[in-house]
């Protein structure tokens, strides 16, 4: 009985001693791991560090449970891993961070090299005298005087628009209307007609001015429609150029009462005369006569014929010298 007790006590002592030894080994491994961590082992030897840490944790758990055999087995794995991690971490230690020389403080110059009254620190052109408005830079030249300075003028010797980088707008038909505004860029035309050639709407005959486009009025009224202004403008020019007296004749179709038609044709002839006077024709040269439906030029039985009969004619009465 006594022998058994002695044997049990011996076993306990051995177990305690073994546990103590394992804890010491575990502490040593933990110290290695700490050292490796300090040397950046997580980046340099992640596998080794992980193996060491995990097995150390497992060993400590086993020791807490009193299982020193399994703890030793884990420490067998942890110890070399920790040493490897430490060794690798030492070889790939963090790169020494070179302390850069502090940059010298900027020296503020109070000199004025070009003598333009603006210190060099504020002078955008420190070597060339310039005005304070241009921060010390000279006024830029503008050889073609188009308001676009030569540094940004793509045509510095030809005046041009600012929107076109100082170059003139192209004008293919050379009619003075730039292509961008010219509705007929390949045919010369006046600016009034947006660069398009004037359409000839009249022909001056010996005894009359022939219209290629009839003058239009509001229905049953003596109000000229705006689409007839061009043709009347040309008539006015022709009258002035020819220097003749003109009889403005108003005609209608046969629709409606004869008296009414006569009255309407007279009113329309008067309206045309008034317009021509507004355009600069002398009133004394013009005479307005309404003929009503008396002088048809086509059959009133058809719509087309009636349209032709509703007209204004310009007859030359005499030539003035």
């Amino acid at each position, binding site marked *: 009985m006594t022998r058994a007790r002695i044997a049990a006590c011996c076993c306990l002592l051995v177990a305690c001693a073994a546990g103590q030894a394992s804890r010491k080994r575990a502490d040593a491994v933990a110290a290695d791991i700490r050292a490796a961590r300090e040397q950046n082992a997580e980046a340099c030897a992640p596998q080794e560090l*992980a*193996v060491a840490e995990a097995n150390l944790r497992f060993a400590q758990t086993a020791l807490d449970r009193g299982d020193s055999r399994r703890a030793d087995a884990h420490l067998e794995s942890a110890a070399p891993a920790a040493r490897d991690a430490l060794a690798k971490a030492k070889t790939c230690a963090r790169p020494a961070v070179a302390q850069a020389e502090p940059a010298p403080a900027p020296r503020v110059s109070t000199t004025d090299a070009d003598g333009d009254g603006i210190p060099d620190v504020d002078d955008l052109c420190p070597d060339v005298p310039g005005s304070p408005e241009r921060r010390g830079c000279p006024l830029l030249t503008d050889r073609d005087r188009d308001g676009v300075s030569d540094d940004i003028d793509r045509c510095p010797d030809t005046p041009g628009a600012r929107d076109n980088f100082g170059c003139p707008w192209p004008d293919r038909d050379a009619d003075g209307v730039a292509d961008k505004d010219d509705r007929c860029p390949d045919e010369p035309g006046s600016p009034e007609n947006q660069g398009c050639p004037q359409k000839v709407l009249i022909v001056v005959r010996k005894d009359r001015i022939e219209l290629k486009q009839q003058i239009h009025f509001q229905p049953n009224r003596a109000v000229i429609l705006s689409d007839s202004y061009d043709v009347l403008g040309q008539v006015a020019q022709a009258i002035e150029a020819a220097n003749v007296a003109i009889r403005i004749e108003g005609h209608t179709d046969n629709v409606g009462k004869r008296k009414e038609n006569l009255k309407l044709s007279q009113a329309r002839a008067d309206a045309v005369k008034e317009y021509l006077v507004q355009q600069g024709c002398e009133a004394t040269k013009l005479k307005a006569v309404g003929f009503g439906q008396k002088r048809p030029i086509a059959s009133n039985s058809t719509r087309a014929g009636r349209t032709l009969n509703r007209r204004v004619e310009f007859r030359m009465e005499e030539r003035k010298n």
Partner: protein
Amino acid sequence: MARRGTILACLLLGCGPLTATSAIDDADRALVRARAADSERYAAYETALAELYLAKAREEQGYAQYGEARSLASEAQRFANAASRKVADRGGEPASQSPKRTAVQQR
């Protein structure tokens, strides 16, 4: 009746094996996801820890140490998730992507 039997069996035997297995499966899936995102390259430390803890969890489960196994599996899952996050932070593939990768992608 069957439900009562299951509950009774659970009470008698304890749910340790079930919960440990579930925790190990979760950790395993998290690790697969992390590996699919190339965590072994960009988060080697966390991935290695996850692998070791998961292996240890399985070992403890083998010894019927279910509590310890569950705890280790949880740790393994935490490390696997950390690895995935690290990869995602580096601008790698999102960790939630399918683990299936072609040879070209792995290059």
